[in-house]
């Protein structure tokens, strides 16, 4: 057994699982005795979905009972084939015959004498007809103008004439729209006076076509007008139905005409393809579940974790039992683990109960709908097969553990349950955003997505639920998804444990927050280097500024580009990039440094690193650059493709026509100085205050990666960030980092520019090869580079030699003095 394993095992056995179990059992019992939790976890899901189902049924019932009003003027001019029967359209013209009741027709045709007399119905009818009559004139004028306008445009008449007609049309629209809105009519049909005769003439002309030329058949007779208001949902729905009715009625008319003229009835539909739907019933339902289950699982795992976590963390503080628990022999890790397992149990059960309740309700509703004679889109909505359900549980474990640990950390941080509740909204928003993204039909699991928290499990589950057969390609994704999810959960758990170990978190007193006091405190109690929170804030500032400047940069670019030659465009972009680096990255960090710290020298590590370190930092990029290129190429499959516009812009900026010095200024010198000042200067020294150097370097590299936006660049930048961070921490100087950054970026620029120029023969062939349209290094060179990189990195990151009279070596992490780091107080009190 090797040493590392031993340590892990020792930790494992040193922890009293008995205590964890005791705490877990107590917390579970405590939660089960809490009515609110029980309601949230068990009762709500069991009631919610059936109730929602009932609600939906009732809503549909209410909606179906409301027929829409259709008014027909000139009904007596309709042909004999009956469009209307009584106060409804004829049942024959509906595809779904029950829809006939959804439209109520009022026409100006005389009412048959045998209809029972109903006072209110008669009043409604005469009122509707009266308002329709008022519109008739406006409508016919509008139709006339529209025909004129069309003619004017066709004949290319003068612009004035067209404009005059257009304005006439506009002036008609307003009174017509108002009249229609006030009339309570959803669709108005106006049949022109001679419509019946015109159709009759058409029919006879068609029938006699054998003797006369077809050109003699005249089609330019006035047509009926159908008026609707597409801004009104009711009108739109009624209109769609009316159109459907008229279409099928029209087809029937056409069939009659064809028959009368001795032509086959199927003449108008020579193509009429046969439709085949391969979706099996189980696929249809699989599709439904794959849309619903992953999002619901994620959201419910979060909500299920949140409320118990707040009760176990902040609630425990609030009720004063936290201290009671802290003085028992159980260690903080054991306490957190016991609580974590409890929260996870509730998170998982909430999610599972919700899913099963939704599943059974959905299935029941679908069967109700199909029994009721309504053809359901979902068939009988069979529940997913057992293997899919197993996957749901497998994916639930990492999700529940991640959310439980996160919520517990937040809840521990909160002073009170009320404060705890506030943290739910941001957490929920972020999670919702991710699930909305995942539920989009265009998004399927990809290597890159599989390592993103929440998204990986959600997308994998979506894919697994959708596929009805075995999905071997998806099973492969389970490995990275599960591994990374467990990794994220462990990180979150470690954070929760860390929160529990902090006395300033456990004993946060409810103090009055006063923004003025706080500002005073910031400016008065300055320390040599920024605090952890200040560093985090600086990063957020930079991100926010980048985001805000996106729009104005875009605008500036587009505005400036009007009528600028392509070469100058590149120049312009370079200038903007320079401004962005200086204004949005270096300036915030420098300003915060000046305002919030007492020692710029310490904050920005302004210290001469020594020639040997500087030399190493200048050499290291030559060794690392070939390696990072190989890494980037070998990981290309992993990252989503960058947007095409971006590649274009990059090409423009690095094009050979730009002066090399300018490109180096913008892409190497400016980032080397500005980004180092921000990320290795302010942010790293702030994060270092946590006392954990590794964490500080990791966080600052992550921040450094994130501002690079594109996933592949984020990854590369984060990796280089680690190297830069270690360099800065170990040399306690920003200068090696700036040197490294500058040389590295210059190499990248040269590599991009030289791509096509390097010849495939002579000395070049020893160093480079062309592959996949890219300049790559020869394997031998790569091996050398790797060796050199290891050597240089070792030299650069070893601990600094202790020189008497220089700054003292950093104190070991975890020492109380470092944690609180407030040495000024001693002066104040004595």
């Amino acid at each position, binding site marked *: 057994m090797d040493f590392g394993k031993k340590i892990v095992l020792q930790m494992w056995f040193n922890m009293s699982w008995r205590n964890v179990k*005791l705490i877990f059992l107590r917390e579970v*019992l405590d939660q089960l005795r809490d009515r609110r939790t029980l309601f949230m976890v068990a009762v709500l899901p069991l009631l919610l979905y059936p109730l929602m189902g009932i609600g939906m049924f009732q809503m549909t019932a209410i909606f179906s009972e409301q027929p829409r009003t259709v008014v027909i003027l000139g009904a007596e001019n309709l042909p004999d084939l009956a469009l209307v029967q009584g106060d409804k359209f004829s049942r024959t013209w509906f595809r779904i015959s029950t829809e006939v009741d959804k439209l109520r027709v009022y026409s100006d045709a005389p009412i048959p004498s045998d209809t029972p007399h109903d006072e209110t119905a008669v009043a409604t009818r005469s009122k509707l007809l009266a308002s329709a009559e008022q519109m008739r004139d406006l409508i016919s004028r509008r139709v006339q103008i529209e025909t004129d306008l069309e003619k004017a445009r066709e004949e290319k008449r003068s612009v004035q004439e067209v404009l005059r007609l257009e304005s006439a049309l506009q002036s008609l629209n307003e009174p017509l729209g108002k009249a229609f809105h006030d009339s309570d009519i959803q669709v108005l049909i106006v049949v022109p006076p001679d419509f019946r005769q015109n159709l009759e003439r058409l029919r006879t002309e068609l029938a006699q076509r054998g003797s006369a030329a077809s050109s003699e058949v005249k089609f330019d007779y006035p047509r009926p007008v159908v008026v609707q208001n597409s801004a009104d949902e009711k009108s739109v729905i009624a209109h769609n139905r009316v159109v459907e009715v008229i279409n099928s009625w029209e087809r029937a008319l056409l069939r009659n005409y064809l028959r009368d003229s001795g032509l086959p009835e199927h003449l108008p539909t020579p193509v009429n393809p046969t439709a085949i739907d391969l979706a099996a019933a189980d696929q249809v339902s699989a599709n439904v579940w794959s849309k619903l289950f992953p999002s619901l699982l994620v959201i419910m795992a979060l909500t299920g974790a949140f409320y118990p976590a707040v009760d176990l963390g902040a609630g425990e503080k609030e009720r*004063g039992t936290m201290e*009671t628990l802290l*003085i028992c022999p159980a260690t903080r890790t054991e306490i957190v683990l016991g609580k974590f397992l409890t929260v996870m149990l509730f998170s998982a059960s909430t999610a599972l109960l919700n899913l099963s309740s939704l599943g059974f309700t959905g299935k029941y509703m679908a069967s109700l709908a199909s029994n009721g004679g309504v053809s359901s889109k979902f068939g009988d909505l069979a529940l997913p097969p057992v293997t899919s359900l197993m996957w749901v549980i497998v994916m639930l474990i990492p999700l529940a553990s991640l959310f439980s640990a996160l919520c517990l950390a937040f809840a521990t941080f909160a002073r009170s349950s009320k404060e705890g509740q506030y943290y739910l909204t941001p957490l929920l928003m972020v999670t919702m955003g991710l699930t909305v993204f995942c539920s989009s039909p265009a998004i399927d699991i990809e290597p890159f997505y599989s390592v993103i928290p929440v998204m990986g499990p959600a997308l994998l589950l979506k894919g697994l639920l959708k596929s009805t057969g075995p999905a071997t390609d998806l099973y492969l994704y389970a490995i990275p998804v599960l591994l990374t999810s467990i990794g994220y959960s462990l990180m979150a758990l470690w954070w929760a444990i860390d929160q529990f170990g902090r006395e300033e978190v456990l004993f946060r007193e409810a103090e009055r927050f006063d923004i003025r*006091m706080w500002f005073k405190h910031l400016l*008065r109690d300055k320390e040599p280097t920024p605090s952890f929170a200040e560093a985090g804030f600086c990063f957020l500032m930079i991100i926010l500024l980048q985001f805000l400047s996106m729009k104005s940069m875009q605008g500036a670019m587009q505005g400036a580009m009007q009528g600028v030659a392509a070469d100058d465009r590149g120049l312009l972009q370079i200038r903007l990039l320079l401004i962005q680096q200086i204004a949005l990255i270096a300036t915030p960090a420098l300003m915060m440094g000046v305002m919030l710290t007492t020692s710029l020298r310490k904050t920005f590590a302004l210290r001469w690193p020594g020639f040997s370190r500087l030399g190493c930092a200048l050499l290291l990029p030559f060794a690392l650059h070939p390696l990072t290129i190989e890494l980037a190429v070998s990981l290309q499959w992993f990252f989503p493709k960058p947007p095409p516009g971006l590649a274009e812009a990059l090409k423009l900026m690095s094009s050979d026509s730009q002066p090399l010095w300018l490109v180096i200024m913008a892409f190497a010198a400016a980032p080397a100085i500005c980004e180092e000042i921000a990320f290795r200067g302010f942010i790293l020294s702030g994060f270092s205050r946590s006392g954990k150097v590794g964490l500080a370097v990791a966080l600052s590299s992550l921040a450094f990666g994130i501002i690079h936006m594109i996933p592949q660049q984020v990854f590369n930048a984060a990796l280089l960030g680690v190297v830069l961070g270690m360099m800065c921490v170990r040399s306690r100087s920003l200068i090696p980092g700036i040197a490294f950054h500058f040389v590295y970026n210059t190499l990248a620029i040269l590599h991009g520019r030289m791509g096509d120029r390097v010849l495939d023969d002579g000395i070049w062939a020893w160093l480079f090869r062309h592959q996949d349209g890219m300049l790559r290094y020869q394997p031998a060179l790569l091996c050398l580079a790797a060796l050199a990189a290891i050597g240089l990195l070792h030299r650069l990151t070893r601990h600094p030699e202790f020189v008497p009279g220089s700054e003292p070596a950093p104190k070991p992490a975890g020492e109380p003095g470092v944690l609180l780091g*407030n040495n*000024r*107080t001693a002066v104040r009190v004595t």
Partner: protein
Amino acid sequence: MITVERLTKRFADIQTGGFTALDGVTFDVQPGEIFGLLGPNGAGKTTCLRILSTVLRPTAGTAFVAGYDVATHPSEVRARIGFMSNNTGIYDRMTAWEMVEYFGRLYGIPEEALQDRIAHLFDRLQMNNIRDVLGSKMSTGMKQKVSIARTIVHDPPVLIFDEPTSGLDVLVARNVVDEIRSLREQGKCIIYSTHIMREVEKLCHRIAIIYRGQILAIGSIEELSDRYKQPDMEELFFQLIDEHEAELRATVSC
């Protein structure tokens, strides 16, 4: 049993920039003795006792409890102390018996011995009538009894009481004081903080008067009244604080 040397604790504070709650405090407590920490609110009593119970870490100085350093062996220390304060609440959704049982189990007492021990404690503290009452349904007095039972369920050699009577009515407070006295008779090493003079006079062998994180005077009640020529503890207390304030003003002005 308890040895405290130059114990210092500083907190970061938004309003004042930093706050020294405990400033080089030194004392020791022997078995069979009740040591009183006497001081007004905010004097640093709670901070000191929280450090002794390993809930807070000292900024500087050392503290040994039952032979273990609180900074390096917190678990060993916690297993050997009983700690009670008005901050150590009891669980609302647990009965008296469950609560004491739970902590007994966390202290690792074997199950059979634990049940006997709890039964004994419930008899002694006359708690059998609230055995199955939930914490949320208990009166303050009942809660305090449960807290005492929880504090001594593992029969610890060291007991720490941080203002155990504050907020209690006289009857309950008297019960608590009686209980602590009987614990002393069992030979426990007890540290007791309060701002109530009468309790100090009734209970403590030795006292330390603590103010603004510093011990102004330490010794038995007789020693102190001899040293400062002041038989009345309350008068002595105010006298010391006034002197200290005057001293502070003098240092600030010069």
